[in-house]
């Protein structure tokens, strides 16, 4: 799907869960019946790994209710009823992605100033993991960062949000990259794009001009957008087991996150909107949409013409790692990169049979694990074997389950095993 980003009309109501990131929830700082303006802070992330929350509309706080996220968590959420005039259409598009973006980072921006602005803007990783960005984009006292890598490899098949962003708005990506590089004191800035996106590569190269930003073109494959795989592919460095990119001197962010950093730092506007792909054969009119965070999935689906007759599964995210959910009042959160609706034909269930030890899962595992061994250790509760085979290194990309000829739910078994291993190591 290669649809231009379309601005979705403002909703009547938004629901904003207080936890939309990895880490601790934020605290609501608004009360029912309180009026809020667009961009006003409504939640404060006080813990170190937490993020602020802002109102994506101007309106009135209705209540602090409960919302269920696609991953099944029930969370307190601020419900806001939109009232008064809203910024929408082309004006909103210009505000978020359009207009002028300076390519130089003036000296008045100290690394700490940039990190503070990012913190205040409530920016989290928009690729899907939703890790608070200010934790990554800050001067490290213990680890030297020499390279800032910007992930423009689409994290999932079906989704095209990053692609459309790079094609339509390469300038905020370049600006954000330069500001973020200043914040982490990185010497090198590399934007990584897969070779099936020539238009994005062209636009980024034009926007980058003579800046230090380099574009690395990579082979298209899944999961190329996974950070450890990307570091290996571009820099030929391996992130130590259980470590972070910072351990090899790399800071990594998704292109959409970087564009949000540009907006947060240069325009001092918080993260209130994001681009999502609404895609799959089960949706009538697939689109790429700029939506306010907190809008309900049902509204997004309706705007895209609704579900087709043979729609079978609605997934928040992409088909490989996304969460299937059934409650359509679920809001779009900061980490929602898309909405994939699969048909009965896509998800046709096949019975699991015995593992025939073909080794296909071993061949496809991007972490070089032995998925069948891990899955069987998990199934029979053999925590020691699971640990010996590094079960916690699995990041659940789904490649093994996709490839398994016996249709064994390897990833699901490994998830269970990881929980057992973590529980065991806590005792």
């Amino acid at each position, binding site marked *: 799907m290669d649809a231009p980003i379309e601005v979705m009309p403002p909703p009547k109501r938004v629901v904003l869960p207080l936890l939309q990131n990895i880490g601790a929830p934020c605290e609501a700082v608004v009360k029912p019946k309180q009026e809020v303006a667009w961009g006003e802070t409504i939640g404060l992330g006080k813990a170190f790994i937490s993020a602020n929350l802002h109102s994506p509309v101007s309106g009135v706080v209705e209540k602090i209710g*409960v919302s*269920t996220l696609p991953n099944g968590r029930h969370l307190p959420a601020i419900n806001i009823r939109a009232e008064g005039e809203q910024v929408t259409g082309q004006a909103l598009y210009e505000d978020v992605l359009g207009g002028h973006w300076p390519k130089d980072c003036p000296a008045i921006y100290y690394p700490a100033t940039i990190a503070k602005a990012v913190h205040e803007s409530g920016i989290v990783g928009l690729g899907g993991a939703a890790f608070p960005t200010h934790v990554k984009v800050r001067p490290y006292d213990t680890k030297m960062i020499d390279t800032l890598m910007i992930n423009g490899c689409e994290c999932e098949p079906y989704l095209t949000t990053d692609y459309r962003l790079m094609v339509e708005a390469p300038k905020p990506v370049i600006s954000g990259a330069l500001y973020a590089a200043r914040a982490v004191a990185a010497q090198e800035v590399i934007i990584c794009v897969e070779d099936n996106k020539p238009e994005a590569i062209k636009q980024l190269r034009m926007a980058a001009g003579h800046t230090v930003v380099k574009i690395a073109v990579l082979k298209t494959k899944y999961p190329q957008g996974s950070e*450890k795989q990307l570091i*290996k592919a571009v820099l030929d460095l*391996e*992130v*130590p*087991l*259980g*470590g972070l990119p910072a351990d090899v001197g790399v800071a990594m962010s998704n292109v959409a996150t970087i564009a949000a950093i540009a907006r947060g730092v240069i325009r001092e506007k918080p993260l209130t909107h994001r681009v999502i792909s609404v895609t799959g054969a089960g949706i009538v009119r697939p689109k790429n949409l700029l939506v306010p965070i907190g809008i309900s999935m049902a509204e997004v689906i309706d705007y895209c013409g609704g579900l087709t*007759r*043979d*729609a*079978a*599964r*609605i*997934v928040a995210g992409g*088909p*490989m*790692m*996304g969460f*299937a*959910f*059934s*409650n359509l*009042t679920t809001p779009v959160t900061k980490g929602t990169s898309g909405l*994939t609706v*699969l048909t009965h034909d*896509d*998800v046709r269930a*096949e019975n699991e*049979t*015995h*593992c*025939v*030890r*073909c*080794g*296909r899962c*071993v*061949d496809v595992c*991007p*972490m*070089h*694990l*032995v998925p*069948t*061994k891990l899955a069987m250790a998990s199934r029979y509760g053999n925590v020691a074997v699971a640990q010996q*085979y*590094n079960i916690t*290194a699995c990041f659940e990309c*789904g490649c093994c*389950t*996709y*490839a*398994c*000829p*016996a*249709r064994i739910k390897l*990833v699901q078994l490994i998830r269970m095993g990881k929980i057992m291993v973590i529980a065991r190591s806590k005792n």
Partner: protein
Amino acid sequence: MAQQAAISQKPDPDDAQGPSLHVAPSPHIHDRAFTTHRMMVDVVLALTPAVAMAVYLFRWSALIHITLCVGVCLLSELIFTRMRGRKATLNDLSAVVTGLILALSMPATAPWYAAVIASAAAIGLGKIIFGGLGMNIFNPAMVGRAFVMISFAGVMGAGAYESASGMVDVISQATPMNALKQSGTFAMVPNLFLGLTNGSIGETSALACLLGGIYLCIRRTASWEIPAAMIATVLLIAGAADIVGHFGGRLVLQHLLGGALFFGAFFIATDPVSSPLSSRGKLIFGAGSGALVMLLRMFSGYPEGVMFAVLLMNAVTPLINRWTIPRTMGEGF
């Protein structure tokens, strides 16, 4: 929570035509082109040239063996799974593959009861006793073959291949490997390659096995590492023997193209269940099989060694798996 109850997972009764949604853990899509069933179909397809060659060369005896082995394998699978109180798994076609490979590894002169007993042993002792497909340690077809070879040495051994009163000309000759062993005579290389020699009914044609084998490797139903390592090892050891004995290349070709090497390398050793998981493990497995084939051919009483070589390597497969755990990305830093 009332709000949630209102939006149920089931479609609205007023809109019976509406989509019915359900949830499941990720990933939500699968590789449709690759299933266990499809792997078995691939093997059957890949065996077609060898089967055609067998029927051309051995006529009725080939047809009788194939029918008997496949039939009895399916029947045994049905009976033994019932006895274990399991659901019959005939439609995964694995019993058909076992039967076909077993039939193609039998001498044309073998009596009918040997085929029946071998098939029952292959499925019963080789597979179901361990828990069915995926659980067996040894290649089921080779278990059956070894069972009758030891039980009926007279009618299954190397000498039994030759029968002056046979229905077809080819079985009046010695098998190329036996001729080499007993009298040091070499068969004509083109005949070996095309398969116009005596031998087990499916093994004679290196060409037919190569065609099917390449298809299997391209489909990635068989791992290329195993046949490549196995054939390369035979080439190396036979090559050394050739140079030492000044055979001028003839000995290498006999070992490569004669006997069951190609059939074994592509169809027997590649059985995924009884071979290692990782690429490195598969290379070791193939090299080990190749070395054992040459050891048996040169120093044992048997003229041919593929069957025992593969069975021996099957036994060490768990060990190879343990030696060749891939290094997890980022491990050891």
